[in-house]
């Protein structure tokens, strides 16, 4: 990605490729190389094969679905003129095991069922959310399906919504990618504007938010998901 202004940071074309194996698919993710910084985060799951994994000890989501962090990375963007860090980007990729009922019905491989599963769950989780921006029609909320966006893919479309990760910050993108009848991949990006106590960040929150969404789109494009023939048949029967 060509970053706006004088912004410099990690590039996806200088990335490591990491494979994760599932019963119904194989997933390849790009992990950008990030400079050694004091506060960087660069963690990747040591488990690579999830074909037959016990999820009993995993953390739970708001819906009590087991979830597991595959990748957690945090890096900084700099201004090439001043070399000040102007924003940090936190990428988190988690694996969610859907409910037993959903697994047996294989319905998570249906575009409409996937959408309903997560939009309903988000509506429950964020019910009663308040804030100065809730009157803004473009602000992600239940009424506008959290700014739902369908991400077109050859076999099965993915979904994207928006969530505000911290009071006062801009909404960030979040994508859900069905892997097989058991797992859904959740990818979230969150960029925060960085400030030094003695000088102003020359880049606006709006510009940083725009860059965040651009980077997110580029990252989604880089994901390679190869379904097994059985999974493909299921997908075709539903969609």
């Amino acid at each position, binding site marked *: 990605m060509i970053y706006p202004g004088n912004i410099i940071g990690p590039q996806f074309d200088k990335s490591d490729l990491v494979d994760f194996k599932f019963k119904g698919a194989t997933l390849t993710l790009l992990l950008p190389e990030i400079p050694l910084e004091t506060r960087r985060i660069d963690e990747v799951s040591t488990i690579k094969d999830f074909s037959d994994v016990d999820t009993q000890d995993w953390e739970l989501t708001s819906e009590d679905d087991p979830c597991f962090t595959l990748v957690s990375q*945090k890096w900084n963007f700099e201004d090439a003129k001043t*070399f000040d860090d102007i924003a940090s980007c*936190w990428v988190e990729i988690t694996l969610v095991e859907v409910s037993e009922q959903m697994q047996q019905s294989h319905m998570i491989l249906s575009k409409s069922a996937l959408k309903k599963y997560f939009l309903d769950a988000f509506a429950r989780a964020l019910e009663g959310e308040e804030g100065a921006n809730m009157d803004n029609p473009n602000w992600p909320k239940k009424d506008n399906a959290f700014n739902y966006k369908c991400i077109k893919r050859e076999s099965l479309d993915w979904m994207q919504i928006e969530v505000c*990760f911290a009071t*006062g910050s801009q909404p960030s993108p979040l994508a859900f990618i069905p892997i097989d009848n058991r797992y859904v991949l959740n990818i979230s990006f969150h960029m925060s504007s960085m400030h030094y*106590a003695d000088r102003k960040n020359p880049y606006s929150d709006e510009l940083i938010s725009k860059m965040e969404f651009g980077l997110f789109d580029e990252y989604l494009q880089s994901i390679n998901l190869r379904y097994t023939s059985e999974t493909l048949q299921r997908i075709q029967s539903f969609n």
Partner: protein
Amino acid sequence: MVQQANFIYFSPQTTGKTGKAIKIDKNLFLPFFCGVDPKTYEGQFIINQIEQLRTAPDHHTIPVGNAYRAPDHTQQLQNFKNAREHMLRVKSAQIIYQIKQGVGDGSPTVYITQIRITNKGDNQAPGFYSRNKIPGGGRGPIQKMKDVSLKHRTVYINGLSDSIDEAMKQAGNQSNVLFYNPARVCNDLGIWSSAPQTYITKNAVKELTKGLEDHKGDPVNWLVEGEGGGVLNEALKNMSGTLTGHNFKITNPKTNTPKLLKAITEKKGNLPKMFLSYTDSEVALIAAASHKEALAQQIGLLPCDKEMRNKIVATIDEKSSGVSPLTKQASRLSSKSITFVQALNNAGIYRK
């Protein structure tokens, strides 16, 4: 006033063979060690930019102008301007320096007299926050608590972090309420800081003081990490009343720990078993080593059982002995033996 005997060359590249010599006050060794890690990209960059001061012009040259000045008057003005302090801002470091030609200097030399670390952070306000879980797992939205209810809850006061997200990650599964202590507050209340409190720091202290005062009679558990001890220290100083029922556990404190323990006991707060622990933070251990006697004395006065007190003092002794050679090295630095950066690289073995 620059005491030249306290200054050593900054690095092998800055001894004056090319460009201006750069010298640094050796008393800055520990703050520099704690704020700048030469192994990281940022640390390398800061050191490199300081070395670039070799090529700094006598930027404080007197403008030619039209007015006639006697040569000695011009020289006097030049000396006066050069002796003024200047600042190099590079990433999180503020380097304060003067350019002057001291006794024994062959030419004008850069003297670094002070370094301040101004950690960067987000714009989130300090205060009490909680995190919602979301259906996708991972990080959920963090929201400022409208009605701060801490009764029977565990509150985490974070150490230095870039953002509220990172502070929540520090809290992990230990707690679902965060008292957010932003980087700017850590800058003001850090162990090496002598800066006056900024508005945001005053605000942080005020919010925490209110949280403590509003829950005076309630059971509340507090987990305090690193620089979080600084803001707690200030809030305890400002609050009225007592904190019976409040439990405090402190990890890697980067503050005046004897003072913090004294304030907690004066407010009748509880210090449970192993209330003080040190893991792998060299900054916290350096702080402990520099307050070791006062810390042992303060722990000795605590109303917990003797065995526990002895155990904690022994742990601090054992852990801080690892950094003792570093503090000794800092006091023995001499320009004849080693440059500042070489000493910093050698001290890398004390980093975890």
